[in-house]
């Protein structure tokens, strides 16, 4: 592993629930090296998804600093955060979150509409992404015509099509059977190992966490590292 891709220093997150302020975590420190594959586990409400949102720039910390690739991102305005997400982060959700009216190809192409790539270059990238996830033969199918596993592969292709450095996965196998989940997790391992993607995966499932290089346990606002492979 080389230098750090993400550094979190003394970060805190507080929400207002009605009139009540709820502290999710405080004084959180974390470093994610490039090409790491880290699984984050923890009980419900421990702040796993909140942490993922902070890493992905869809939420801002209440305090502290978050650096991505050596640059602060916690103080970016909304449009700069949007540009940051488009260029640096791929998201994979539990329920795939594909656009139902678009084909697999069009779903994968969606993030490329934000780039300056021409139609031909976009088509090439989409084809490559679909090849990587093994779904070239389902390119013209809509999500409703695909199985859960196939939909998640399309979602992975969408996440990697703009070649981001970071993939954030929120319970990526939570809606899949064991066998399909294994396929998806192996694919994530491949993306980490062969394509150099840094992956942060939130999961409840210890079996899924075994595919990561390391596992962090988040509880009461603090991390503890565990090795589930032993």
């Amino acid at each position, binding site marked *: 592993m080389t230098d750090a891709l993400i550094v979190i220093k003394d970060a805190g997150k507080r929400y207002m629930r009605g009139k009540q302020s709820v502290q999710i975590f405080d004084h959180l420190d974390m470093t994610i090296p490039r090409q790491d594959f880290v699984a984050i586990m923890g009980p419900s409400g421990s702040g796993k998804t909140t942490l993922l949102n902070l890493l992905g720039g869809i939420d801002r910390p209440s305090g502290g600093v978050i650096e991505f690739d050596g640059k602060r991102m916690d103080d970016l305005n909304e449009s700069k955060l949007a*540009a940051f997400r488009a260029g640096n982060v791929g998201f994979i959700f539990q329920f795939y979150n594909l656009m139902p009216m678009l084909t697999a190809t069009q779903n994968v192409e969606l*993030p490329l509409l934000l780039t300056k790539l021409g139609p031909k270059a976009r088509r090439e990238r989409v084809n490559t992404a679909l090849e990587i996830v093994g779904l070239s033969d389902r390119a013209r199918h809509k999500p409703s015509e695909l199985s859960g596993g196939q939909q998640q592969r399309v979602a992975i292709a969408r996440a990697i099509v703009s070649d981001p450095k970071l993939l954030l996965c929120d319970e990526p196998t939570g809606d899949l059977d064991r066998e399909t989940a294994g396929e998806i997790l192996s694919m994530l391992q491949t993306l980490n190992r062969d394509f150099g993607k840094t992956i942060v995966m939130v999961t409840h499932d210890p079996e899924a966490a075994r595919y990561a290089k390391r596992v962090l346990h988040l509880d009461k606002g603090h991390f503890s590292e565990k090795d589930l492979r032993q």
Partner: protein
Amino acid sequence: MTFLDLVRKNLFRKKLRTILTVVAIVIAFAIFGVLATFQNALNAGVDTAGADRLMVTNKINFTLQMPVAYVQRTRSVEGVKLVSHADWFGGYFRDPRIFFAAIAVDPPTYLDIYPEYQLPPKHRQAFLSNRTALVAGKAVADQFGWKVGDRIPLKSNIFQQMDGSDSWDFTLAGIIKGESARIDTNFVLFHYDYFKGTRSFGGDTIGWMIIQTRSAKDNARVMKEVDSLFANSPFETETQTEQAFAKAFIEQAGDLGFIITAVVGSAFATILLIAGNTMMLTVRERTNEIAVMKTLGFASERIFALVIGESLLLAVIGGALGVFIAWLSSFALQNATGGTFGPMTFTPGIAIWSVVLMGLLGLLTGWLPAVRAMRINVVAALGGK
């Protein structure tokens, strides 16, 4: 895939709902197009009225007569360039239900004062040189299939000939075209002298005079002087600009402009609610998807543009179809009315107004949903809150 493809796919994901909304918009724009065409036809006389032309009618009522001798006296008023006169014949051809204006005129001055009526020189000469000649506006000639040289018997529902007949025989000397499609050509003209010499009553009287002033700046003074010239006579006059006269003539039937505006306004207010509701529902149903798009990096401004793009596309599809129907209807209306209410033409002006309304409809119906979409909180939406 382009940004526009994305807008289109979003718009047609619930086909039935979109089609029903489009149909409602089509109806609104068709109503607008047809009524605007109708209003345009009614206003054609007002819009095409010459700025330097005045109409002199009997002060009591414009249907009453005045002596033909007024023409000569009016010519002496300072600022008057040309004076012509006309008389209403109340004519029809075979079927009294098919309306057109049949007017007995002083041909040379009348044609000079209305240069927008285009008559080939040969036909003009034929008209001037033959006392029983008649020239027909293109709308009338087309309506009855008349050709130059045809014998045209016209009946009057007002006058009779001295021999008791109510029919006058004419020879069609030419067909008048308007210099633009907005010029009403639903009329026929013939010689006042022929009419005066054969009618059983009316004597040396005319229906109205038309004055061309040297300049529109002279209008106010000429109007005043002409009316004072005939003040305290048995036939007092009322002189007004041709535009004011045409407007007053239309408004005899009520304020049609207001009625048309009210109908069109109601149609658009309804469609604003229908299309606005559709767009609002659309955005509400897609809260999660919009949050996902934001997560992928679509900035709020792009989300705003996507939703506004959808409402604009909806308005343009419905509007364009409605305008097309209105355009087709203008031909049917022209055939059905034969130009009775003026030329039923779907003008470029109506098309431009339609485009403006499409834009307004799209912006107004899309604005609120677009702002709502722009403000969707990604964390809350993805968390199902």
